């Protein structure tokens, strides 16, 4: 799992039926200092995050397991909204 920042939203009418009801966000992967890592991805969200939120996400096969009733065709899925984090002693 990794950290990311929700930076935008993607709308698509024509999409895989298994993605119905799933929100698609533009998500910038970030490190613990909120610095961007690589380029933004399109992420599936089922936890109700909003633009601007710091979130954590799972990649690859695990990203398909976010719903109870079905696996979804996603390789990046938001699975938590970060309330608080702390880093390092020094």
């Amino acid at each position, binding site marked *: 799992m990794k950290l990311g920042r929700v930076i*935008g939203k*993607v*709308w698509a*009418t*024509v999409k*895989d039926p*298994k993605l119905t009801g799933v929100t*698609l966000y*533009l998500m910038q992967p970030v490190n613990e200092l909120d610095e961007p890592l690589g380029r933004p991805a399109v992420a599936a969200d089922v936890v109700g995050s909003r633009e601007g939120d710091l979130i954590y996400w799972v990649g690859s096969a695990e990203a398909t397991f976010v719903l109870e009733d079905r696996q979804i*065709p996603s390789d990046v899925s938001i699975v938590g909204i970060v309330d608080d984090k702390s880093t390092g002693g020094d």
Partner: protein
Amino acid sequence: MELARVEGTVVSTMKNERLDGYKLLLVNLVEPDLKSTGQYLVAVDSVGAGEGEIVIVVRGSSARQSAELSNVPTDSSIVAIVDVIEMKKKTIYKKHGAGEKKK
């Protein structure tokens, strides 16, 4: 998942039979502002995407979870055609003719 622009169609006679009947599209991965990343992929289309459209591509084993492609050997699938991309409440991309009724 990644944003990509459909740039072409891949035509092949000699191919694995399990891909028979599926449309293979050449896509160019793009940044959110739709600039090319220079990276190209061939993806199986499951939503009827056409050249020039901005689409969402799923990669890896997740690509097989598409409703249409559960038994197709694929590592990249097109799972949606993008209508609108919004950042900071501003529309940064809108498909021609999309969302006429919304707003």
